[in-house]
């Protein structure tokens, strides 16, 4: 990251730290949701943007983690120290199993992950004795570590901010590592990667497990915020929305999924106040993105900036210099 990058990050973090002092409950809730669903979208992007496979079942990890934590906290009165790691652990185990999906690719991968997501949703609906069915599980308390407890939404906001920031930085490190480069190589040409000595399946599996685990972490953060979980959290709708966030924001970057998350959640909150069928608007947003900004908002901004920089006099050569050709942020 250049000097400017750190400056932007510094300002953003400073603003983020001040946010609860300035913003009311509604906005703080919205920012928390942007962060949590941004993290879910980020986990999707590890597969979609970096590895080149399109998962449509990430609500499964998200919801399983949320359910596990909620049930342990509420029904079995377990402390956060146990409930939160258990939620994450459940998602990791599910990801280890669902990772088998990487044996397929293309549209088959989409369909298989979609079906896998449906299994979790189905269990949430029908296994009512355990999951409470459509009534869901509510009254999840704020997290607490012994006497160290979160007592209000703005404190919880700081916790979410810290976790998401740590995840984003670690994610950035990962995508710039040899492992991250390997994933992008697989995205560009699996056959060549095989020929260069890579066990492509093993790398895709590792990426899938990491991605599912990250989605699980987002689910744990979600349940302590939302304090309630029911089958819609596990639905295809959530998986689609997460993918949509990535596409709208821009794939293959760290910040893109969060931008997408902000756009979609703000839209949903505003539009749903005026229009019952706000899904229609989401459809329009999606179509507009695919037509005019296939690289998402970030790609659009990059393109506009390049056009501004390139005066007509020297617009002839599309030479790209270091960095710009890369798909990392």
């Amino acid at each position, binding site marked *: 990251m250049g000097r400017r990058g750190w400056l932007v990050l510094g300002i953003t973090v400073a603003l983020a730290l001040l946010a609860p002092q300035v913003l009311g409950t509604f906005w703080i809730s919205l920012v928390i949701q942007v962060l949590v669903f941004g993290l879910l979208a980020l986990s999707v992007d590890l597969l979609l943007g970096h590895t080149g496979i399109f998962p449509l079942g990430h609500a499964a990890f998200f919801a399983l983690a949320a359910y596990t934590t909620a049930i342990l906290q509420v029904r079995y009165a377990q402390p956060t120290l146990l409930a939160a790691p258990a939620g994450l652990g459940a998602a990791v185990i599910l990801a280890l199993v669902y990772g088998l999906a990487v044996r397929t690719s293309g549209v088959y991968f989409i369909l298989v992950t979609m079906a896998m997501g449906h299994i979790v949703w189905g269990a949430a609906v029908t296994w009512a004795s355990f999951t409470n069915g459509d009534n869901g599980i509510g009254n999840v308390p704020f997290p607490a570590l012994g006497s160290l407890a979160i007592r209000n939404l703005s404190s919880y906001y700081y916790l979410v901010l810290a976790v998401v920031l740590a995840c984003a930085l670690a994610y950035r490190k990962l995508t710039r590592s*040899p492992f991250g*480069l*390997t994933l992008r190589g697989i995205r560009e040409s699996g056959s060549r990667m095989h020929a260069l000595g890579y066990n492509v399946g093993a790398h895709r599996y590792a990426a899938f497990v990491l991605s599912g685990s990250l989605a699980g972490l987002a689910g744990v953060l979600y349940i302590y915020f939302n304090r309630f979980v029911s089958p819609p959290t596990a639905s295809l709708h959530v998986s689609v929305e997460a993918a949509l966030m990535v596409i709208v924001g821009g794939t293959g970057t760290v910040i893109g999924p969060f931008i997408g998350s902000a756009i979609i959640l703000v839209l949903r909150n505003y539009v749903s106040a005026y229009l019952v069928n706000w899904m229609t608007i989401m459809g329009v947003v999606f179509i507009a993105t695919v037509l005019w900004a296939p690289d998402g908002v970030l790609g659009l901004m990059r393109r506009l900036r390049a056009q501004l920089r390139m005066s007509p006099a020297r617009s002839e050569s*599309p030479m790209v*210099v270091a960095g710009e*050709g890369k*798909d990392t942020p």
Partner: protein
Amino acid sequence: MTDQNAVDVAELTKTFGGIHAVEKVSLKVPIGQRRALLGPNGAGKTTLFNCITGSMRPSAGRIFLFGKDVTEMPEHHRTAMGIGRTYQITNVFLKLSVIENVLLAVQGTTRQKWIPYRSVESFPESLARATEELERVGLANRASVSVRYLSYGERRQLELALALASRPRVLLLDEPASGLSPAERQRIAGIIAQLPRHITLILIEHDMSVALGLADQIAVLHRGRVILEGTPDEIRANPEVREVYLGKV
């Protein structure tokens, strides 16, 4: 007993549906030899390559690398044993930079490819090796450019650099000069000619002057079978080859 053959293909057959793309081909390439495969389109040359490297499973027959039976071995393990290849249709990583392309080839046979917590730049040895390979093919000044912006000729050079960067002991080149201008052909041929002699080369090439100039030994394939083997001079003189390969005059 050490086997003196780098590649030993025994009675190899590959069928697609009812079509015999490769039919009972046997081929022994001694270590260090430069072997060219000639033959018209559809003779089964690329299919033979795919079976040797492991991207395709043969329908029948065995394949040995340095005396070891690798018929059932997955492709990436064969790469680790020292096999490298290029593709007839350029197969590089389009949205990555040139240096990233070569880095992928460099780290492919090492444990480094699994490391998630250090940046790519923190491996100076890999970077140095990648740069070395780019210098060899004459692309060092394009290192940070995205491959999308390379010319076709440059992509062919990169194609070769990728294969060389994994330090193969056996290198299979599938029409390395295809689609290039005469000047570019000479450049690619020059790079290949200068490769160290301990690398065993198997080369598919339609350009007779390139193929005959580089190879020690030549095998001619036609309709999935080896119809002739010999030195470049013998091949040049053979009337059957002229008919099959160059067409009836």
